[in-house]
């Protein structure tokens, strides 16, 4: 059997190695006591009964983490706030010391001989709480008199951020022929990777070294956060990871459990493993989105955009996760005006704290928030002004001749042909044939709608250069080390194919190690769709460095000047002769031995890229049940050069369906009175299913970026960034004929049916977030 990806045989045969696949002699197991209430002062914790239970090796509380010198979990990189203000950083202990602030927060860690014994002991712990008032929405958190979560954050607002020119925007609105505004809510969701988070820690008392086997998107970020929390020197913390079963952003940060497990390993003198249950994933994995927003657009009489004004109020949860503010703020700054040439724009973002799971990155990481706002607003303007939504977009798109484009807030897009992308999508989607399809659906009693989104993303530039290293083995295998960790993105295949193409070697020669503690590299975790332009560029440099070494060796072997040696398809040849030697031969002769001459470390530094696209969605709604069915979906994306179109299509499929999940039903719901989490399992949290999506058409319109040697742009998240607005525009377009004028996600059957009923009965035409 052949597999199109190098990693597929391992995955298909169950040979992948995840956290729960690691086992060591004498291994113990941990379990956590979690807060069962959303906001309370801890009066006392009685662990005596738990400590005395059979098989229990340690019961760890905040007193122990304090004794170990643990500090607050890291918060976020400084972000400049409005008027010179700074991000206010709440303390976040590994184990709650005085106050619990969300249901699911870790309070006590128990280590025992078996996982069941640890769970039994958790139930024997008695915590006395004194309940505090809860605040469950960002709107409530910023209201006067709201319960306060952190002494360091008066008013529960961690930062107010502004980008753009508010005065220019105000002036533009003054003189506008039309002003259109729209309030939207982008609901809280749970990322739900297949592999629950987990951690196995080993401690060597001789050397002081910790080996931490953990779900990670990249060892550098994970290690830095664990070092910051535990105070253990960087050289003693070794992250080990092989396969990681999904992440989407929520395997970037070091969860508090990981530091606790490290301490558990030291205190018990044994390897300690903990793997979350699915219930724990729901209760304590970072959540995402949860943004209330208002958008306004000013237009002249011809429908030209004069200005955008946006206000975002983000529910950040009970603490500020390291990636939270980046997601909430920087994506909006980078894509403030989308694909439009608008002379003025401003966005104000406030980050509010509530008694809920902290918010962080999740596929798209802020871009689906700004793209959803802009593209819904553009459709709203088209509707209110009676202009065709395609025409309104076409009138305002940045033309390709204007590239590189300086954005309204002083940033830039390097490349792109937005009108061509739009045209290609409209053609593939048969936009103009929609009327006939709608009529046919109408004859069956169904509501059919079409919608589009023209959007742009900014991919991660990276905090450091990306280093890669090739190590040549004794049997011809070439092991590639890199930081950016695959948690489903096909790095193994993509890297191997890139190197194979340049070096003229079969791709099977290459293997990938992301999280090998023996090889410490600088680099960035996977995130922001940046791996191919970041690590990919470094691999291109690596290949050139290997060829350069080969050229010197070939010159010696062929007794020629290296300047006369050309390299093509894996073979060095003296120009104009038939005298040659293959790279493979040179590797065989020289790679071994103590010198390891072919072993090479290379690096590259790349900035953000700006993938963009046009997605067209077509849905049908059965008004009897409110069920929304995605009948056609066309995605045309400019991701620059595509190295492996199958992998790109897979990324698009996954991201589009992930967006469809949020549009159709995913919704993390807390009880507003008690702060209890109501959607804590897949019985209540509606993941998208294969039957929800039909007719995906994926196409590309590459405009290679000049900002990296490969000409690639990011591709991992564009599907979500496009699908949220495209799908919701299509759904609202289907509902407008029955009188619905507004609809917030999610478009669950009951909510859609309710909106249709309310509009038809004249009760209301706006169906906003509850």
């Amino acid at each position, binding site marked *: 059997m052949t597999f199109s990806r190098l990693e597929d045989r391992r995955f298909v045969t169950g040979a992948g190695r995840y956290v729960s696949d690691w086992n060591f002699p004498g291994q113990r197991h941990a379990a956590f006591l979690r807060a069962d209430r959303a906001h309370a002062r801890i009066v006392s914790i009685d662990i005596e009964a738990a400590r005395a239970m059979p098989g229990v090796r340690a019961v760890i509380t905040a007193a122990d983490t304090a004794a170990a010198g643990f500090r607050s979990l890291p918060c976020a990189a400084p972000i400049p706030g409005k008027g010179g203000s700074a991000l206010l950083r709440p303390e976040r202990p590994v184990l709650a010391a005085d106050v619990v602030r969300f249901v699911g927060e870790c309070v006590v860690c128990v280590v025992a001989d078996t996982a069941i014994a640890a*769970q039994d002991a958790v139930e024997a712990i008695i915590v006395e709480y004194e309940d505090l008032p809860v605040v469950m929405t960002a709107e409530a958190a910023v209201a006067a008199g709201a319960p306060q979560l952190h002494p360091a954050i008066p008013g529960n607002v961690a930062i107010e951020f502004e980008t753009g020119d508010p005065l220019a925007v105000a002036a533009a609105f003054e003189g506008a022929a039309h002003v259109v505004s729209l309030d939207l809510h982008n609901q809280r969701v749970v990322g739900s990777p297949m592999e629950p988070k987990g951690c196995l820690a080993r401690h060597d008392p001789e050397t002081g070294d910790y080996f931490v086997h953990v779900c990670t998107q990249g060892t550098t970020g994970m290690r830095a956060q664990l070092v910051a929390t535990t105070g253990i020197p960087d050289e003693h913390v070794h992250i080990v990871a092989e396969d990681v079963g999904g992440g989407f952003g929520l395997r970037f940060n070091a969860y508090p459990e990981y530091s606790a497990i490290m301490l558990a390993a030291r205190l018990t003198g044994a390897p300690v493993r903990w793997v979350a249950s699915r*219930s724990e994933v729901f209760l304590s994995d970072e959540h995402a989105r949860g943004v209330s927003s208002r958008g306004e657009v000013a237009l002249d009489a011809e429908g030209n955009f004069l200005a955008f004004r946006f206000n975002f109020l983000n529910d950040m949860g009970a603490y500020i996760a390291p990636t939270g503010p980046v997601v909430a703020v920087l994506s909006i700054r980078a894509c403030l005006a989308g694909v439009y040439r608008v002379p003025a724009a401003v966005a104000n973002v406030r980050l509010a704290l509530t008694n809920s799971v902290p918010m962080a990155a999740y596929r798209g990481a802020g871009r689906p928030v700004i793209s959803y706002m802009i593209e819904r607003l553009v459709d709203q303007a088209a509707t209110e002004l009676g202009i065709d939504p395609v025409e309104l977009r076409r009138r305002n798109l940045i033309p390709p001749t204007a590239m590189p484009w300086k954005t309204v807030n002083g940033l830039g897009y390097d490349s792109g042909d937005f009108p061509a992308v739009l045209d290609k999508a409209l053609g593939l989607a048969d936009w103009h044939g929609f009327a006939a399809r709608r009529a046919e659906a109408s004859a069956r009693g169904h509501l059919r709608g079409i919608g589009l989104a023209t959007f742009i993303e900014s991919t991660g530039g990276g905090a450091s250069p990306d280093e890669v290293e090739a190590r040549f083995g004794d049997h011809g295998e070439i092991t590639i080390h890199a930081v950016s960790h695959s948690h489903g993105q096909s790095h193994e295949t993509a890297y191997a194919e890139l190197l194979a193409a340049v070096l003229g070697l079969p791709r099977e020669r290459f293997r990938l190690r992301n999280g090998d503690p023996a090889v410490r590299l600088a680099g960035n975790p996977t995130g922001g769709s940046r791996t191919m332009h970041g690590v990919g560029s470094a691999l291109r440099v690596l290949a050139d460095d290997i060829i350069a070494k080969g050229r010197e060796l070939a010159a010696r072997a062929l007794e020629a000047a290296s300047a006369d040696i050309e390299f093509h398809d894996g073979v060095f040849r003296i120009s104009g002769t038939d005298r040659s030697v293959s790279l493979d031969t040179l590797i065989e002769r020289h790679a071994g031995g103590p010198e390891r001459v072919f072993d090479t470390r290379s690096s590259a530094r790349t900035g953000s890229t700006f993938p963009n696209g046009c997605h067209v969605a077509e849905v049908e709604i059965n008004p009897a049940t409110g069920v929304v069915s995605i009948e056609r979906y066309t995605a045309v994306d400019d991701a620059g050069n595509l190295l492996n179109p199958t992998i790109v299509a897979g990324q698009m499929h996954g991201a589009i369906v992930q967006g469809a999940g949020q549009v159709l039903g995913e919704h993390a719901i807390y009880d507003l009175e008690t702060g209890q989490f109501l*959607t804590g399992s897949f019985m209540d949290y509606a993941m998208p299913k294969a039957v929800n999506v039909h007719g995906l058409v994926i196409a590309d319109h590459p405009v290679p970026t000049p900002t990296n040697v490969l000409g690639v742009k990011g591709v991992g998240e564009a599907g979500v960034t496009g699908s949220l607005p495209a799908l919701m525009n299509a759904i609202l377009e289907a509902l407008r004929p029955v009188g619905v004028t507004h609809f917030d996600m999610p478009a669950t059957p009951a909510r859609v049916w*309710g909106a249709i*009923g309310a509009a038809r009965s004249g009760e209301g035409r706006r169906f906003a977030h509850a």
Partner: protein
Amino acid sequence: MYEFTYIRPGSLPEAAALLASNEGAKPLSGGMTLIPTLKQRLSQPSHLVDITALAALKGIAVVDGRLEIGAATRHIEVATSSVVRQSLPALAALAAGIGDPQVRNRGTMGGSVANNDPAADYPSAVLALGATVHTDRRAIAAEDFFQGMFATALEPGELIVRISFPLAERAAYAKFPHPASGYAMTGVFIAVVGGAVRVAVTGAGPGVFRWTQAETALQARFESAAIADLEVDATDLNADIHAPAAYRANLVRVMALRALETILTSSKGQ
């Protein structure tokens, strides 16, 4: 999961004795509800008495004009049984739509009926068809068996042995699966047995119930127009984070219409 003792008895009396002599013992059939409950530590039985291998609880047969199905019969067996498909195809179709393949390969009819989850599929068929639940102690009419959310007429330790279904002249089931769980958000089973129309609803309320208004209307004329405009009283229906009661009331009518449509368009009248 807490520790428990697993026992696989060799006979029905032995199973009954084990359940009677251990207060904390619970019967284990397919375990589709019980095992998740154990995993969540929401239940702490002393013993699990596995009754799935008992011969007395097995078998599918038509006897004296009734379809008899052993309690330990798995959904997949009901769905694919030629006997069921010929004698009561609506029941086979219902079984084919329960849960997913994993659930159908493990879950049993007796387990589902004994559990009486308000969103389970089988109770609607048992009630609409007017089936009889035979236990190791007695025979219980469907009308008397279901007593609201997770409540039945079963006494402690009493085990369902088989369920006996009259062969309907016409029958069909339609359900609206919950978008997350796949359980029936509302399911409606319509049956015509001995000339009498019976309509049973699952998922919408706290327990399976008969929609008598629709029964009367369909008894008068067996066509869609008879129920298309019936209002369903939402007063006692379920309301939760997924849907208000009014939505489930609407689904009762819509699913009834779908079930009726299946009956009316089916070539065999089933």
